[in-house]
């Protein structure tokens, strides 16, 4: 299927195209439905008429019905905080694993990889207790802390750093660079595409993360968008679907717009992150 000789021809090709399009339509349907409902008055939310008037009233109502501005700020702080910490911590750790010999390296690396399986999402009860002991419950920091040392990030950067020619490293040392300067001047610049890929994956993961933030926060000051959206749609609105879908689109808009603008980078980043 990967090469020209095995491409479908004639009727088969037509069928494949139709199949691909039907599946695509099916896949975009929920989102299209949400757009329809959000941009039309309530009475059209389940009635499809071509002459239905467009309106932004649902968005205005949703925006004023809950502190979404605050939730947005919280989410941006959360994603930025996690990303900066992840980049710093994972870079240092990956550098150690890729270029330094020290006792216990193998075991420590295996211990790091444990987090690929046992993600913080499944250790909610114990981590909640730890946050209580630390006095961090209901803070943005508490949402982010368990994710800051990321096994995935360490693994990804280690693989990348290992491909950097040792000669470059040695040349920089002969010039008198310290190990940290070598890291900063040689390794980090060469890994830029990987950093971009990792950043996109990380931000979309934490923008969307829900269960842990739901558990660890209980005030408007700390809640991210996902939790705010849930609180909003579960309690305040009854079943006013136009407003709920408007709020839903509102909360996903930044990511969705970024994705549409940088589609190629997104897709390539996810690919790059997966291949390693």
């Amino acid at each position, binding site marked *: 299927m990967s090469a020209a000789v095995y491409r479908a021809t004639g009727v088969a090709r037509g069928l494949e195209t139709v199949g691909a399009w039907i599946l695509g339509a099916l896949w975009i349907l929920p989102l299209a439905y949400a757009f329809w409902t959000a941009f039309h008055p309530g009475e059209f939310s389940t009635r499809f008429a071509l002459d239905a008037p467009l309106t932004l009233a649902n968005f205005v109502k949703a925006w004023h019905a809950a502190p979404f501005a605050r939730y947005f700020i919280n989410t941006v702080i959360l994603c930025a905080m996690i990303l900066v910490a992840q980049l710093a911590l994972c870079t240092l750790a990956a550098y150690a694993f890729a270029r330094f010999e020290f006792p216990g390296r193998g075991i420590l690396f295996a211990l790091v990889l444990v987090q690929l399986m046992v993600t913080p999402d499944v250790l909610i009860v114990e981590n909640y207790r730890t946050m209580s002991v630390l006095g961090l419950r209901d803070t943005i920091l508490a949402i982010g802390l368990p994710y800051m040392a990321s096994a995935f990030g360490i693994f990804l950067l280690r693989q990348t750093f290992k491909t950097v020619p040792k000669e470059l490293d040695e040349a920089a040392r002969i010039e008198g660079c310290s190990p940290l300067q070598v890291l900063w001047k040689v390794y980090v610049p060469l890994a830029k595409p990987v950093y971009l890929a990792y950043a996109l994956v990380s931000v979309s993961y934490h923008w969307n993360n829900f269960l842990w933030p739901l558990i660890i926060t209980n005030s408007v000051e700390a809640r991210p968008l996902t939790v705010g959206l849930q609180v909003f749609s579960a309690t305040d609105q009854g079943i006013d679907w136009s407003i709920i879908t408007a709020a839903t689109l509102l909360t996903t808009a930044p990511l969705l717009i970024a994705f549409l603008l940088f589609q190629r980078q*997104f897709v390539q980043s996810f690919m790059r992150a997966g291949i390693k």
Partner: protein
Amino acid sequence: MTRATRWLYGWLLLLPAAALLALFTHYPAAATAWRSFFSTPKGARPATYVGVDNYAQLVEDPIFWQALSNNLWYAAGTIPLSIALALLMAAWVNGKLAGRGLVRLAYFTPTILPMIAVANIWLFFYTPEYGLLEKIGGALGLPAHNWLGSKSTALGCLMAVAIWKEAGFFMIFYLAALQQISPYLAEAAAIEGASRWYFFRRVTFPLLMPTTLFVLVNAVINAFRLVDHIVVMTRGGPDNATALLLYYIYEIGFRFWDTAYAAALTMVLLTVLALVALGQFWFLDRKVHYQ
């Protein structure tokens, strides 16, 4: 640099990440195991050692068994379907398809949307009377059906959401792998007279095996780790028909505050994940890798 300095450098570079990992991954995993042998502290009464009482409770707890079996059905339903769809999508998008970019966009978009938002939209889909599914059913003359409210269909509805959300994500990895397969293989096979299906079965699919393993492991972990949509759509109901393991842990731990029992339940989840890890190594040992 002397050897000792190199050692020191390695350890110091690792220290910040290792400290956080130890605090939020290794310690809680160990503490969970420890606490599963104690009672839940209540008020002035501290936790006391109770041996395997929590596990005995677990064996007797019909909701636990239901959550576990729900989760296994959920995994068995979502994993093969989303992987098969991902492969199909990748094969289509990799070919010369009219409107390829748009189709790829449609497949991939669910990946970047939050599960919580997506669940809201699907909830509307499934709503009795107003929902799109009911409208379509009504137009076709089918009797009214409460999709999320009836025990027979609720879990299936959640599975549909998961498959829809994940297939496009997995497609990306297959797409990357397909693009790395040399076109000469297909030419050689065609000269030998291999049919299209034969070529896929004997050449493409085996070459995609490492990708399939990677995707499979991710799919299994997600099947046990992602319960956001349950919180929004069913809250485990009706009658625990959609309670998955992690959701049940969440309920026990944070609605009933029975942390000791939640610890025992978490141990079951950790065991499942450990089995997945072992399975992965066993698979790798059998040389799935063709590189």
